[in-house]
């Protein structure tokens, strides 16, 4: 890949901060805990002489047959860039630069986001959520599509079907969803979300935030999925899920122009929870659970 990379870089000197500077390359293979070796990515960072951070990141896979993850990542990044073009959020993500998909080789090039990972949790958490809500609010102004209560129920039922549960377990989930209070006048905008919004995927850069890792962009278009995941996966670091939901969700739903009563939050969170399970279905810990176990697990999360 390195020969192609050098060639493409040579043809596009404007991608560099200092065109003509000499380049060095650093390779990083992503760990493979969740996926097989073929699915994990290999990244090559391009450094310009004298620069403290890389300018370009090339992403590829070990085999061409596993290249779908690179194509998806690139197309996700394009859709993110499209949504923020010309706005104050234009620098919140890497910029998609190039996709090479020929000669049995697939790799993509994107700019590298500046910033460092969380250090001061309280200050950084407030900043991250403020900027994130700002971005979502910006997207909400350009969408006319909305989720109604019927659409959300359809989504819940479809998600339950894809979990591969027995008929009885699926029924338990379906009944639990019905049991949750739900305002029939709910109206939520359809929004592109990051899909893997965790502390590890956020970089702080002064008073800006940058989001990295675009594999799961758009996995859910039901608002709140990202925040639910952030609170769920950062529990213990940035406070309890329930506390954070109560603190930030009203603000979030308000800013994106949603119409939803706080009593309906649990219904939405349950759908998010099911979607997250769907995404992790390939992992052993998420398999062979009964409907009761899934419901109990959700209850214990939101009850805190």
């Amino acid at each position, binding site marked *: 890949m390195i020969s192609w990379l050098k060639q493409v870089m040579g043809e596009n000197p404007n991608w560099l901060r200092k065109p003509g500077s000499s380049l060095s*390359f*650093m*390779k990083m293979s992503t760990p493979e805990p969740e996926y097989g*070796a073929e699915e994990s990515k290999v990244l090559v*960072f391009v*450094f310009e002489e004298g620069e403290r*951070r890389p300018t370009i990141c090339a992403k590829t896979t070990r085999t061409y047959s596993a290249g779908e993850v690179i194509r998806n990542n690139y197309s996700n990044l394009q859709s993110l860039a499209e949504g923020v073009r010309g706005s104050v959020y234009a620098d919140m993500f890497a910029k998609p630069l190039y996709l090479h998909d020929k000669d*049995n080789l697939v790799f993509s090039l994107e700019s590298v986001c500046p910033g460092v990972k969380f250090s001061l949790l309280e200050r950084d958490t407030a900043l991250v959520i403020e900027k994130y809500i700002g971005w979502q609010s910006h997207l909400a102004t350009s969408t006319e599509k909305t989720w109604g209560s019927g659409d959300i129920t359809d989504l819940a039922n479809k998600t339950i079907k894809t979990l591969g549960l027995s008929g009885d377990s699926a029924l338990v989930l379906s009944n639990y969803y019905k049991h949750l209070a739900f305002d029939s006048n709910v109206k939520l905008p359809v929004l592109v979300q990051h899909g893997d919004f965790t502390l590890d995927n956020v970089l702080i850069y002064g008073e800006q935030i940058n989001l990295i890792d675009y594999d799961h962009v758009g996995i859910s278009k039901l608002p709140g999925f990202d925040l639910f995941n952030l609170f769920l996966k950062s529990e213990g670091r940035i406070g309890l899920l329930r506390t954070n939901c109560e603190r930030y969700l009203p603000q979030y739903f308000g800013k994106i122009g949603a119409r939803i009563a706080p009593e309906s939050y649990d219904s939405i969170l349950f759908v998010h929870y099911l979607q997250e399970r769907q995404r992790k279905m390939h992992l052993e810990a998420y398999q062979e659970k009964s409907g009761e176990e899934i419901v109990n697990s959700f209850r214990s999360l939101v009850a805190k």
Partner: protein
Amino acid sequence: MNNKAPVKVIEGIPFFSDDRYWGKAPKEELEKALAIIEEKGWDEFKARYRDRFDSTFEENRADWRFVVPLSGESFVLDIGAGMGRISVPLARAVKKIIAVDNSFLRMKFLKLRAEKENLNNIEVCVGDIFDLPFERESFDLIVMNGVLEWVGVTDRFSNPSEAQIASLKICHELLKPGGHLYIGIENRFAFAYLRAIDHSGLRFTSYLPRWLANIYTLFRRGKRYQAFTYTKSGYDKLLQKGGFADTTFYLTYPGYNLPRLMIPYDNINAFAYAVRTFLPSIGWKRKVARFLARWPLLLRVYRYFFFSFGMVVKK
């Protein structure tokens, strides 16, 4: 490609030198594993031995290939190929691989593995680097991963360095013009050798002057100190004596056998970025490393004691 006939052929595998088994697992264990493949099949072997034999099925040992110019038309020679952790992933990206190893059993395993994985572009043979049968300028890439340090363990040369230089000259001759040699190897003065044993089986020998290490190993082990490793400048000089003048050095983390990170040696900013961004933050050593990353001068010193190198050497 070959310019001499094998001494013998056993089970379809040509021999260009004597069979000499090596490896962390005893020979009997590999023989038993091969019997399981033949009698009970490949899946049974994978189930029983997934984490044995140095994690044979991990595909990332060859990840250095992403910084080496290679194409689907490349011809590759993997010297000291072992059980194929480099040959197998490389075979998916290049035209042809010739895997050479001193051990017949290891080559038999690799041959079986290549057949099971439908990789018909891997050829195996039993051979020592000094007995290779290939014509000049046959290869686009030669791989010596974890090999150069052992080349000196031979009776053919009185001095291990001479053996290492001779092996590099052979590689230089076998490479096509513009071809590359990849070397993965330890740093002589790695911090790790202050608490772990060196290739000699003893502690601190890589830090000692060669003559003293020799006396020490003769005294403790009854044999000469022959598995030489070097510093970055030492490898540079060795490569120049072997005929190579264009080498790009990388720091390999956590080690050359699992090069998750390959950091360009000459770019201190890249090193600082890697330490700040990618190295795990847990553990006191990493905390020290992150602290050092604030001062380039200290990183330059730290670099001198890094565990291992990956070298991309152009002919």
